[in-house]
């Protein structure tokens, strides 16, 4: 029992070690304090920032990432099921999907700027574009790799094609769909943060990091980076928890 409790604490060791090294390095002034502020001043900046402008930026980034992921999911999941349910259709579009999946979404910024102008629409649509391809690809593969025996079993029990699609293929693809959603939301966050830095943005975590760097306010910059990290980790964790709850058979 005590051994298990000990094992649960293992992940904290890395965290503690990181903070210890950070603390010692700044206390002993191994690093220029301007480049690396102390943990205390960073967390003070994080705390006060989250109750002020950084909190506002955080919410903005959450909103944009969520909007992009939601749009991507709404488009990519039905499309992925459609493509995956016919291997011929998927094979004929595979190259196009793979090509755009491999194209850095950031390369699409200028095009989307022309299409949507300098605003939230551009950021959200570029992020959604990137996430759509990742989700689409995973959903389609999840559907295509549905166990043949399971499909046959449903057919033997008298399930119509539509029934097989909804009762079997859709559920069979769920674990892979969640892989796609987790990768998709991570990619959307990356694109949103980059867009907030450089595309005439007035707010968002990317803007916050960039602005703090321009003003040489290092504690604030680290605080903003840290907030972005928390957001990325939190989004991934949220999808994992939802998956564990609703796709309980995943990996079993």
């Amino acid at each position: 029992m005590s051994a298990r409790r000990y094992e649960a604490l293992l992940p904290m060791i890395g965290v503690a070690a990181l903070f210890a090294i950070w603390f010692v390095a700044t206390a002993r002034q191994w690093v220029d304090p301007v480049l690396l502020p102390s943990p205390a001043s960073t967390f003070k900046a994080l705390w006060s920032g989250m109750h002020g402008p950084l909190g506002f930026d955080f919410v903005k980034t959450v909103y944009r990432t969520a909007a992009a992921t939601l749009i991507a999911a709404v488009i990519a999941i039905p499309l992925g099921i459609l493509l995956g349910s016919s291997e011929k259709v998927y094979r004929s579009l595979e190259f196009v999907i793979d090509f755009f999946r491999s194209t850095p979404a950031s390369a699409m910024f200028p095009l989307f700027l022309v299409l949507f102008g300098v605003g939230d629409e551009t950021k959200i649509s570029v992020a959604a574009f990137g996430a759509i391809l990742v989700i689409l690809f995973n959903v389609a593969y999840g559907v295509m790799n549905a166990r043949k025996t399971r499909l046959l079993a449903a057919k033997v029990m008298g399930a119509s094609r539509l029934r097989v699609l909804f009762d079997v293929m859709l559920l069979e693809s769920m674990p892979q769909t969640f892989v796609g959603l987790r990768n998709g939301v991570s990619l959307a966050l990356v694109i949103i943060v980059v867009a907030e830095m450089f595309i005439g943005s007035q707010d968002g975590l990317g803007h916050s990091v960039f602005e703090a760097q321009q003003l040489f306010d290092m504690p604030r910059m680290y605080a903003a980076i840290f907030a972005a990290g928390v957001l990325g980790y939190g989004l991934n964790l949220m999808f994992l928890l939802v998956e564990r709850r609703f796709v309980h058979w995943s990996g079993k």
Partner: protein
Amino acid sequence: MSMAGQALRQTPAAVESPSAVGTGGRRPHVTIRGLSKRFDNAVIYDKFNLDIPRGELISVFGPNGCGKSTLINMIAGLMPMDAGEVLFDGMHIGDIKFGYVFQNYREALFPWLRAFDNIAYPLKMMKVPPAERRARTEALVARLGIKLDLNLYPYQMSGGQQQLVSIMRALVVEPEILFLDEPFSALDYEMTLFMREQLQRVFIESGTTMVLVSHDLEEAVYLADRVLLLSRHPARVADFKAVAAARPRSVATLSDPDFVQTKAHCLDVFQREVRRS
């Protein structure tokens, strides 16, 4: 699995049977005539005829690759045949209710449904209302006397329990015939022994015609009313051997002289067919 066939059942189409190996006297349940099937260059079945008697458990046994599974898959309509006809009291497979138990229970059950809902699923496909589905599933479980926690998900159960759930799922529609494709070959020996008893009980209890493919001669003979011994392909009926031992059979049956003799006979036929190549 349509119910349309029910009305037809009163007046089964008369089957003029050319000579086929089969049942002395009783009207056959399944009649297979002129069944032909080839894979690429291999002729698996060539004008194959067989009668399957009603209410009996038939084991299909034969050399590797002779087409045991192919046979039941064609009878069950899972695989198209090149030529021939399979009739169930004069009806086609699409007009009768049947059950099919796959070897790979892990992939045949739905892991997102609890065991109970897995069993009830075919009733949903037959558009039985939810309350009746529940009642019929509960009735089946009670009748078979199987003690299982059906609130579990398949992945929370042992292999044998999962296969029991598969068998119950196949039986819930009260099928006229049940096909089992090597249902126990993915289980360990202890579980296999237990499952043979379970299947025998289910068979005695339900009286459903069953066709079981087995790669284990002892199992094939132990469970069967008749053992269908196939030759190498193109498969012929090498023998259709009746197993006389009374039911319920038990471990004692395995050493009963009659049983031992039947098994030895089947082994002889099998070896003769293996050598003939």
